[in-house]
């Protein structure tokens, strides 16, 4: 590894600092008479940032619980209260944290307001309803009907979502007693636009051969675009990240693994508690997972000339809220741009929103690419639904198939 430029912190250190500052701010929020809103990873968070309401993402906190291997314990605590193991592991980790008070970061501040955007999934609405009852805080369901491929419907959908944005603005004004500042929104949106472009540029570095980044890098670095969207810090972070990778990897032709042979697509969220092990295991086959639609969920393209409209369009058209054929087209675009030659599709028990159409998606992707698929079922967060032996055996068989086909 090269030394960093003098005076400039390496992005890894910067990430640590940004994360500490963010959670520090959140922890102090109520003492400083600031408001805390729980929101979902895909949601128009720019409105919160512009209104100086601190957005908190229980999903992120749940990922931390999962990677610290706390989920089985947290989930068991709420299973005793009647919640079933069929539910999303994020929700179970979160509700378990509420029950036991155990957290990898000392907990989250209580919400004054909750927002659930169902473009991402429906589960969040129900999970946040539980939290809304628990804390007596209002829940705003940011409803985004499926963005079907019908022009008339799309016009209507955007009109609906725009109306909801104005309703949300009113709700935030009522919460804080402060007038909403549209100039500030534009400023925040510019930061979001720039950060999202740089984030996408970072993800697209995976198109290089050999690829200087893999999906595991993406999963680590996406944290900032999720919770610091709309801030100058996020822009600075991704600029630093892209520069660093270009300088230290791309310019020198260094890939994630030596002898890169299989360039893989990954469908669905990761198995969070296994992703490092998966990376190592795959490397032993000369394989590297480069991308997924999931990590591209935050590659928004904001047009700041019409903030309300661009927020409506971007947050409604996320991959989990379009028709299967369109989702497949977006995946195929990644296959083509990144020159992928393998496809791992994870049936994630936790995530109905991403998983329930996956058999059909598999059919389309196989037909269009001719690339065989490795399909396996597990859970993104609950090790009780993960079989090490099964995954290893399947991977081994899969790479044998790819080799036989001389991919």
């Amino acid at each position, binding site marked *: 590894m090269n030394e960093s430029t003098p005076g400039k912190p390496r992005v890894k250190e910067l990430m640590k600092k940004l994360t500490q500052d963010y959670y520090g701010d959140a922890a102090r929020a109520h003492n400083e008479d600031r408001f805390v809103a729980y929101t979902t990873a895909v949601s128009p968070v720019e409105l919160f940032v512009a209104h100086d309401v601190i957005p908190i993402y229980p999903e992120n906190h749940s990922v931390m619980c999962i990677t610290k291997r706390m989920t089985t314990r947290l989930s068991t605590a709420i299973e005793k209260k009647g919640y079933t193991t069929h539910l999303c592991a994020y929700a179970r980790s979160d509700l378990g944290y509420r029950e036991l008070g155990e957290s990898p970061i000392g907990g989250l501040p209580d919400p004054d307001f909750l927002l659930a955007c169902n473009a991402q999934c429906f589960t969040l609405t*129900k999970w946040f309803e539980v939290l809304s009852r628990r804390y007596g805080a209002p829940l705003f369901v940011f409803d985004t009907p499926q963005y079907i491929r019908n022009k008339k419907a799309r016009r209507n*959908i955007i009109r609906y979502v725009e109306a909801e944005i104005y309703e949300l603005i009113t709700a935030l004004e009522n919460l804080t007693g402060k007038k909403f500042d549209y100039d500030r929104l534009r400023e925040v949106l510019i930061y979001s636009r720039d950060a999202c472009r740089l984030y996408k540029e970072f993800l697209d570095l995976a198109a290089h051969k050999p690829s200087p980044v893999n999906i595991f890098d993406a999963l680590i670095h996406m944290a900032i675009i999720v919770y610091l969207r709309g801030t100058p810090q996020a822009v600075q972070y991704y600029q630093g990240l892209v520069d660093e990778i270009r300088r230290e990897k791309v310019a020198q032709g260094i890939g994630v693994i030596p002898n890169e042979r299989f360039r893989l697509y990954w469908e669905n969220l990761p198995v969070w508690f296994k992703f490092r092990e998966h990376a190592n295991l795959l490397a032993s086959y000369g394989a590297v997972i480069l991308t997924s639609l999931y990590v591209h969920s935050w590659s928004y393209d904001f047009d700041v000339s019409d903030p309300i409209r661009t927020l409506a369009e971007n947050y409604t058209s996320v991959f989990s809220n379009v028709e299967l054929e369109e989702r497949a087209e977006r995946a195929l675009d990644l296959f083509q741009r990144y020159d992928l030659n393998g496809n791992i599709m994870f049936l994630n*028990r936790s995530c109905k929103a991403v998983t329930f*159409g996956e*058999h059909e998606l598999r059919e389309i992707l196989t037909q269009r690419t001719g690339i065989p698929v490795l399909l396996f079922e597990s859970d993104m967060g609950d090790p009780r639904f993960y079989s090490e032996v099964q995954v290893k055996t399947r991977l081994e068989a899969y790479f044998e198939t790819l080799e036989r086909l001389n991919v």
Partner: protein
Amino acid sequence: MENRIVRELSDIANNPYEMARRQRAASGQKIIGSTLADVPEELIHAAGLLPFTILGTNRPIRRASALLPDNACSLSRSDLELVLTYETDLFDGFVLPQVDDTTQHLSDIWRRKIPTSFFECYLIPRQVDRPSARQWLLDETNRLKASLEKFTDRKISNDELHKSIVLYNDNRRLLRKIYDLKRQDGDIIGNRAFFELIKSSMFLPEETHTRELRHLLPQLEKKAPSGANKGLRFVVAGIVWEPPAVMTILDELKINVVGDDLCTGTRHIANDVSTDGDPVAALVERHFKKGPFSPIHNRGNRIQENLVDLVRRYGADGILYLHLKFFESQDYDLPDLKQGMGEEGIPMYVLDTEYQTTHLAQVKTRVQAFAESIRGE
């Protein structure tokens, strides 16, 4: 009691498919299948088509598993199975409403896998607590109307839609009257028989069903009330009363269902559509008058408040909550609901059900034990 009309409608509730085929052959009308819930049948009817609600199958799941994972709700899987395997040639088109992740994906899978000349999804707002939802549902209902018009190649006039609304209002009103009689005395009509009246209205042409109800109502009114039935009174909560034997078991235990929040119950028959003004706007307005439905968000603790209200209003002794396997929305509601009912002092029993449930003896034992615990036996 063995009433001819009740028996015939019961037969249709249990096997509507032959009837529907005969009806299509006789009238030449096309059948439009729709899944639960909230598709405005009046609109399909006014387009000169036969609306038919797809309510799953109790027969084995064979092909749906390869398309929709096993942890998808039992209703969606059995709906898909019905059209994939058992009733492959009955429907001329479909309208699939979306309220959650499962129905959203079901819509995509269905569109791709079931060949048909007409397919439309109906994107129901998943919140009803803000004005934006009304305008959205109006836009969406007008889109559905335009789509039906394109399929039939003719306009639906306001006059036609108005007539359909009047017909459906009559049907709902008659069913509500019979429900009132049943609440007075469970001997007037049993649970299974009554809920089959509702179910059959989701299959039969509305004209035929309404005509039958008109004949049936005075016959039932003559019987009321004997006061002989001193059994327990229950509110049944959930989405659907499946498997149907659940209602038979309640009959056998002399328990009278006096209220419910089911899609194949009150949600289907509650509230009329206004006959004034724009008929599409009136259909939309009815949607917002309906009681709470688990996937659709509204303010407050709506599911619990509604159930408590039903229990108090109809003097029920307890709630039988039918929990449909893998229906995620209920899974999130239930722990708080159980606790809430405990605090309200209302006995509630949660019965896990699925379309393919076969352990009916166990179901009966459990419901019986619940009833006994209420009676203090």
